[in-house]
């Protein structure tokens, strides 16, 4: 069963006349994981934020298959977006700046429920405890402040906050980039488990190609705000068609010392 959850057509956004995202179109299948890769300045984060309307796109359409049928996100008023926020959430990059240092873990996880009108204290608490179990944190974390946690633990709190409203669509914006290798593995496993358990659809923005290859089933390669190549992970990684994709792939250092790094030459590829 392949049903679309998100349709993006001709999306563009520029800042002070400098284009960040130009004419991006793609479909996202329900319960799938689409990777968006590219180097810094490729526009991948801007794209993710335009889709969630953290910033407003200039032109283009973003259609989202919500509980109440297809909805156009791109021209919706901020006020009307609020109920839709339940269904789409974001997990951030920096586990240190993404949590409010002045709120306890309980307040952080309950905040989305409060905003969406859950007035029952006991139900909120139940839900928060349930989320903590889901992201494998101790129950006594509730009364603590973010400063008491390590990077990986903080990222789990961020995941709990994103999932507490039971969204169907989650944007992971470089969500594992700032973590140590061992913690990164734990969080990637957690994200995969949660996807199976809750039927989540991920848009996974990352610059680390190895991570994308591991977690995604489709991938979108961006360069200078445009999509240069798109396809299944296997196709793109094994049989890249575009020079830019080839360049990116050739630059990944292999952890095997017998596979030497032979990056392609940018100029020779005409990039």
């Amino acid at each position, binding site marked *: 069963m392949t049903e679309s959850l998100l349709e993006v057509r001709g999306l563009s956004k520029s800042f002070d006349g400098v284009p960040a995202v130009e004419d991006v179109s793609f479909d996202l299948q329900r319960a799938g994981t689409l990777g968006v890769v590219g180097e810094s300045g490729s526009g991948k984060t801007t794209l993710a*934020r335009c889709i969630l309307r953290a910033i407003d796109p200039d032109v283009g359409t973003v259609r989202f298959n919500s509980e109440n049928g297809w909805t156009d996100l791109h021209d919706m008023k901020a006020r009307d977006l609020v109920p839709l*926020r339940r269904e789409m959430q974001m997990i951030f*990059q920096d586990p240190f700046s993404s949590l409010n240092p002045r709120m306890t873990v309980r307040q952080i996880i309950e905040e989305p429920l409060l905003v969406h009108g859950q007035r029952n204290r006991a139900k909120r608490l139940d839900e928060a405890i349930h989320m903590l179990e889901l992201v494998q944190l101790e129950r006594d974390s509730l009364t603590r402040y973010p400063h008491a946690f*390590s990077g*990986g633990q903080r990222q789990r709190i961020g995941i709990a906050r994103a999932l507490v*409203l039971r969204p169907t669509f989650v944007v992971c914006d470089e969500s594992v980039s700032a973590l140590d290798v061992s*913690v990164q593995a734990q969080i990637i496993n957690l994200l995969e488990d949660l996807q199976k358990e809750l039927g989540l659809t991920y848009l996974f923005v990352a610059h680390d190609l190895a991570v994308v290859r591991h977690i995604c089933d489709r991938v979108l390669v961006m360069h200078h705000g445009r999509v240069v190549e798109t396809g299944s992970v296997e196709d793109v990684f094994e049989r890249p068609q575009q020079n830019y994709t080839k360049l990116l792939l050739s630059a990944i250092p292999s952890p095997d010392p017998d596979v030497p790094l032979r990056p392609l030459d940018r100029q020779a590829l005409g990039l």
Partner: protein
Amino acid sequence: MSEAIALPAGAPAVQAADEQQLATITPRELTWRRFKRHRLALASGCFLGVLYLIAALCEFISPYKPETRNVAAINAPPMLVRFFDLDGRFHLRPFVYGYDMAVNPDTWMREYTVNPSKRYPLEFFAKGDPYHFWNLARGERHLFLAKGGYVHVFGTDQLGRDMFSRVFYGARISLSIGLVGLVMTFVLGIVLGGLAGYIGGWVDRAVQRLTAVLLSIPQLPLWMALTAALPPAWSPLRVYFGVTIILSLFGWTILARQVRGRFLALRVEEFVVAARLIGARKMRVILRHMLPNFLSHTITTATLAVPAMIIGETSLSFLGIGLRPPVVSWGVLLQQAQNYQVIVMTPWLMIPGLFVVLAVMAFNLFGDGLRDAADPYNTGGQG
């Protein structure tokens, strides 16, 4: 070095008991912990607490009313509170020696000599000048008085008024008169700076232009003009109060800029974006997510603005365009110490100046300590 302190990531949790405890304390407690280590700031805080307490209770603490004259002791030097008399005997009850006054036939100056036969023991909670405590209750008890004579711990001025009493009555005015204006400055600064920072666009531009205009107006001439412009029937105290409030309409600019800057910085913090993405409305984002994160910073700025207010009062009154007698404030008291003669002949008239210096220094040290402690990104353990 930050990496050395960070919790071992993904490692088996070997946490010290102390760390466990640190985990659940609130940012406020964390701030207090860090502040406590700042010894000088802590001491300054205590000093200010005592000073404000004395100012609040000045009717009771002062042995005399500020306008009470002691004609027997004009321009008398400070008296020493003693436990041992001149023969070396110890007395449980502290006492002072009275003065003998003689006019020097050459200089026509009053000269005071200690007279050991005039021994005035101090009496605590004694009845003395009646007063209205904060205009609320009548009282006549004073912390201490000299039985059968007089006590002037800081000496007296040229009218024979007790400097000790006047310094503390002055403290009440000097430490408080600017506070209302200060609060107004802060409210204006936070509201206007916050609006400029959060809404941006034309609101931001308007506030920025207004700031630029207001910053270019020189304060002293403005002050002088306002003092002259307010109704002449007003008492000097009321005029001064009025001026501080009018000035607060001009004084918010620097704070507004700071708040705007912090707002702009906070607006792009991921946790603020996260709050917007869960669907929180604008006001909730501002009040619940952004405000607590710069309130401590703002309070600190306020603490550092108080000494400026004290100096402002003192220097304006000293120049004669602030408060005027009969109001008693530190600046007014220092008017008496404007000439060279005073410094040589009656140096104790400069004691109010000492208090200004101490209070201002204490506020600055206190504010510095507060600022260091309240920085939420200096959590001494992470990042």
